[in-house]
C-alpha cells in the first residue's frame, strides 16, 4: 500500500506531505510525474506548489500532463485522491472535482492561518472530525477563490459535497472570515465520489507536533478510510 505524492516541476509541498504521511504510518512515495504511478499505488496526493510556474492558470499545465490520465484511471477504480492547494487547482483543471480556483479577491498572495468549519463528516477526509467542528489550518495561495456556476454550487450543497468552509473562530460563515472571496466560503470539495477531494488549505502543514498543531492529521488519515 503506497500513497504516491506526485511531483511536478515546481511542486514544493511534496516532501512535507510525504513526511506527514509517514509520521501517520503510511508508506508514501515521491513520484516524479514523468515516471508514472508506482504499480502498488493505493492513494494519490497532488501536492501544493507552483507547478509549471502557474503559467496560463494555476494547475492548467499539470492537469494536462500524461500522469493525470493515470490519476483519472486510478480514481475511476476507487483509488483515493487528495489535491492540496496547487493540487486542488490541478484537480479542478483536470475535472476530477467541480469548479475552479482562481485569483484571490484581494489580487494578492495570502499566507495566513484560517478557520474552517467541517461541513460533512461522512467522508474519508473528514470522518476524524465532527460535523460543525472548527479547525485551524494554514493557507498559502494567490489563486484560491472557489468559482463555480450558481446552479452547480447549489447541487454541491444539496449533495453534501462541500468538505470545509472558511469561518470565524466560532464557526460562523461570514464574508469577513472568507480570505479569498470563495463562493459560499468553500475551501474544499468532493469530486463525483467521496474518495476524490480537493482543498486549498494545507493539512500537511499542521500534521507534526513540531509545527505547533496536528489538526490536519485527520484529513491525511482519510487514506486509511477511503
Amino acid at each position, binding site marked *: 500500500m503506497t500513497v504516491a505524492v506526485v511531483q511536478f516541476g515546481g511542486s514544493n509541498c511534496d516532501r512535507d506531505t510525504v513526511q506527514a504521511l509517514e509520521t501517520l504510518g503510511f508508506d508514501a512515495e515521491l513520484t516524479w510525474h514523468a515516471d508514472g504511478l508506482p504499480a502498488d499505488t493505493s492513494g494519490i496526493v497532488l501536492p501544493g506548489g507552483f507547478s509549471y510556474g502557474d503559467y496560463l492558470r494555476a494547475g492548467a499545465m499539470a492537469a494536462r500532463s500524461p500522469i493525470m490520465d493515470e490519476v483519472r484511471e486510478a480514481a475511476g477504480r476507487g483509488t483515493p485522491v487528495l489535491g492540496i492547494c496547487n493540487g486542488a487547482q490541478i484537480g479542478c*483543471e483536470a475535472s476530477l472535482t467541480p469548479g475552479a480556483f482562481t485569483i484571490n479577491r484581494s489580487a494578492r498572495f495570502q499566507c495566513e492561518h484560517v478557520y474552517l468549519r467541517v461541513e460533512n463528516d461522512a467522508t474519508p477526509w473528514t470522518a476524524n472530525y465532527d460535523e460543525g467542528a472548527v479547525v485551524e489550518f494554514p493557507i498559502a495561495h494567490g489563486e484560491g*477563490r472557489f468559482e463555480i456556476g450558481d446552479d452547480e454550487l447549489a447541487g454541491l450543497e444539496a449533495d453534501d459535497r462541500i468538505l470545509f468552509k472558511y469561518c470565524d473562530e466560532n464557526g460562523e460563515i461570514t464574508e469577513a472570515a472568507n480570505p479569498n472571496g470563495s463562493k459560499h466560503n468553500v475551501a474544499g470539495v468532493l469530486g463525483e465520489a467521496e474518495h476524490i477531494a480537493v482543498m486549498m488549505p494545507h493539512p500537511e502543514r499542521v500534521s507534526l507536533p513540531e509545527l505547533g498543531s496536528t489538526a490536519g492529521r485527520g484529513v491525511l488519515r482519510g487514506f486509511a478510510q477511503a
Partner: protein
Amino acid sequence: MSEYTATVTVRLKQGVLDPEAETTQRALERLGFELGDLRSADQFEIDLEAANADGATERVTEMTERLLANPTLHDYDITVEEQ
C-alpha cells in the same frame, strides 16, 4: 494548404470577479483618469496551416476548449485570417 493566423480572446464570464482588472482600474483612477469600467482578457495569436478557414477555426476551437479557456471561468471568441 494555406497559412492562417487565429486570434483567440479569452475573457471572464459575466459576473465572475476580476480582481486584477479592479486593481488596474483603481491605478488608472489614481493617475487622474476617469473611466466607467475596465475589463481584462487574454489574447493568443496562433499561426497554423489548414486547408481552409473553417479547418483552422475548428482546430483552434479545440485548442481553446482543451487548454486556453476554462469553461467554469471563461467565454472566448476566435477570429481567423489568411496570411
